[in-house]
């Protein structure tokens, strides 16, 4: 147990047992899958036509937006070239389906039907149509387990979309509740702010929506404000998820220490921090880093630098002292 927790040498054993379990998981998932298939095949013609019409409209809308996006992307790349920065735009995605199996009800995890045979790697970001859902923590050949961003062991670096204020969104274990700790009372964050991933962890792709701030309680007697956010991804409802290969992972998508090759190019100041993180991550093998995404160093945080760095580190890895 201790070995699993600390060193993750037994990840291979877990992956071997997961192969044995996959048929059982498949069996459990079967009634749900059959039910869905039945529902689809017996739905009326009217319903289908209606849905078709709706989807066609949506498609048209998205396509129109996409045209603009393509132009913007090219422009963005050109501007970045002018700035001598080599950030790449665009990621590869793969659609995976959730297996309808229940895990430990007190941790927030999901099982998906893609594994290492599909080049899924440990620590890989998992998204749905709305935003970031979590990351892969256990990998089997045909299935893998992902930790949701609401899991109490999970933290993700974000920034406020409106003004770029950096923060960390930590899971609480309660569905649809994220906490933003170490926000000073003077920090410019208000209800309704969209938090997007900052990409400073070198793991999650940049600028994907993560959560929307639902509550900001500023208490002058406390050093920090209480900020609560709600994930924008439909964590409890999505049936299909997207697995993302960030563009700098495309060269070797099945690597098990996924961040070692990230951020090697010359990049602006913010990127160097992610290089540091990559080094620490590469030093710890396996999924030690997967279950506890690295907290960005102090300079990536909002105003309260020294305390926040000191306190932020133990939070996602409370076990290190044992």
């Amino acid at each position: 147990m201790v070995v699993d927790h600390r060193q993750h040498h037994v990840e291979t054993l877990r992956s071997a047992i997961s192969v044995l379990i996959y048929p059982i998981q498949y069996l459990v998932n079967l009634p749900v899958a059959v039910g869905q298939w039945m529902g689809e095949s017996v739905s009326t013609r009217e319903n289908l036509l209606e849905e078709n019409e709706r989807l066609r409209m949506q498609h048209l809308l998205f396509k129109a937006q996409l045209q603009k996006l393509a132009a913007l992307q090219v422009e963005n790349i050109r501007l970045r070239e002018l700035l001598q920065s080599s950030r790449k735009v665009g990621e590869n995605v793969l659609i995976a389906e959730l297996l309808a199996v229940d895990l430990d009800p007190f941790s927030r995890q999901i099982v998906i039907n893609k594994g290492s045979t599909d080049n899924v790697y440990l620590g890989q970001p998992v998204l749905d149509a709305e935003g970031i859902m979590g990351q892969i923590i256990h990998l089997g050949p045909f299935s893998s387990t992902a930790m949701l961003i609401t899991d109490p062991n999970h933290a993700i670096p974000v920034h406020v979309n409106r003004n770029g204020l950096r923060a960390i969104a930590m899971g609480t274990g309660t569905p649809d509740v994220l906490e933003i700790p170490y926000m000073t009372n003077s920090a410019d964050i208000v209800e309704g702010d969209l938090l997007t991933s900052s990409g400073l962890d070198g793991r999650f792709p940049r600028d994907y929506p993560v959560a929307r701030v639902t509550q900001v309680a500023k208490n002058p007697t406390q050093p920090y404000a209480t900020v609560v956010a709600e994930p924008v991804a439909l964590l409890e409802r999505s049936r299909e998820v997207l697995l993302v290969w960030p563009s700098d992972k495309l060269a070797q998508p099945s690597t098990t220490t996924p961040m070692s090759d990230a951020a090697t190019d010359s990049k602006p100041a913010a990127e160097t921090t992610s290089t540091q993180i990559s080094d620490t991550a590469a030093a710890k093998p396996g999924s030690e880093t997967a279950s506890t995404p690295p907290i960005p160093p102090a300079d990536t945080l909002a105003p309260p630098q020294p305390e926040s760095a000191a306190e932020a580190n133990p939070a996602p890895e409370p076990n290190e002292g044992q």
Partner: protein
Amino acid sequence: MALAKPQGGFVIFISFIVALILMIMPLPEWAEAARPQWLIMVVIYWCIALPDRIGVIIAWMTGLVLDVATGSLLGQNAMAFGIVAFLAIKLHLRIRLFPLWQQALSILILIALYQIITLWVKGFTGQSAQSWSYWLASLTSMLLWPFVFTLLRGVRRFYRVR
């Protein structure tokens, strides 16, 4: 001692598989915490009924499989299963003689112990459950024990597992 030749291992295996399926079957959100601990109940039953066949090792392996199936720390359930199986074997002569309701009470204690061990490990790894509903599983397991016991006894007699 020709009668004592073990048989029906397949039935035991199937009972474990069925219990595992019940453990990971999707339940509505409100019922999740109250999910009866099927697998440990089945393990306890076989420990009581056939203590010379099903012991700590098999219980430990079963727990390991459950660990992988539920994505918990590898060894957490395995250790708890091992300890509970050990106690069940220690007490099997006594528990066998109890009337059903009294058996259910001892099962409550055993499964509560199992939950305490898991809670303890979870506490160490910083993911302890925050609500009292965590303990509901022990109660539902206790309430279902008479059914599980009768069913498994029927199965054991029908297939002459020994």
